[in-house]
């Protein structure tokens, strides 16, 4: 499983004004702390630390995630959709990489 694959799930067809659930998952190791002689190993751990989602360009969801979020982080959130459009999500990792995904909301 390669890192950075984003998968999203939204309902098939929705009605105007509905509040829809958006589910997103990204493959990512979410590296956990390593210890040596009881002390944390000092390094730049690789994990997703921020998630941002927009609907038709407007911010609808953000998350600050820590190493205490599971490997292959999953997030779900809701969006009120008055018009059809696109949900875009971005996952930011601590190594400076950004991973993106999108899903269409159709009426």
């Amino acid at each position, binding site marked *: 499983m390669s890192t950075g694959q984003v998968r999203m799930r939204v309902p098939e067809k929705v009605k105007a004004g509905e*509040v829809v*659930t958006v589910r997103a998952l990204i493959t990512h190791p979410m*590296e*956990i*702390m*390593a210890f040596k002689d009881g002390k*944390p*190993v*000092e*390094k*730049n*751990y*690789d*994990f997703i*630390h*921020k998630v941002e989602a927009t*609907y038709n360009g*407007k*911010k*609808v*969801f*953000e*998350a*600050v*995630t*820590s*190493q*205490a*979020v*599971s*490997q292959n*982080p*999953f*997030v*779900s*959130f*809701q*969006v*009120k959709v008055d018009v059809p459009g696109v949900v875009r999500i*971005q996952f*930011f990792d*601590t*190594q*400076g*990489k*950004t991973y*993106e995904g999108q899903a269409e909301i159709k009426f």
Partner: protein
Amino acid sequence: MNNLRRTFLKLATGTGAVAAAAALGLSASGAALAQATGSGKPLPDENVADTMKRLFGNRPIQPAGNRVKFEAPMIAENGAVVPVRVEVELPMASDDYVRNIYIISDKNRRPLNAQFMLTPEAGKASVGTNIRLASTTDVRAIAETSKGALYAVTREVKVTVGGCGG
């Protein structure tokens, strides 16, 4: 790499992220800011009392009652993947909405697992994720409204195999 990605990377790693974080009301939470600026360096262990103080100061936190529905397993077979769902039965109006939802696990070395930031466009404050629990612990779901009200629900999750590598 196209221009769109270049802009996003700049936002994630530069002062843009700090300004954005502050605008979203993260200024009370130093560690959240540090994480928002993208550092993967280890942060020191934190006692949950200090986490709560750092995030909320001396602000009153009310028991949520029916306002917050918090789903977490009673027993987590695998502490590395513990699904949690938080649904807040409060308005999402432009002048009164659920701005933040915090997930805090008392016995983790750094109790704040994740913080969710919402806008009125959400329609409903309902979030979910999978968290790591080091051991059996109380897990708190705390909702913060745009008016500054805080509501908390606490559930004990028993963990058979710890999920933080220990």
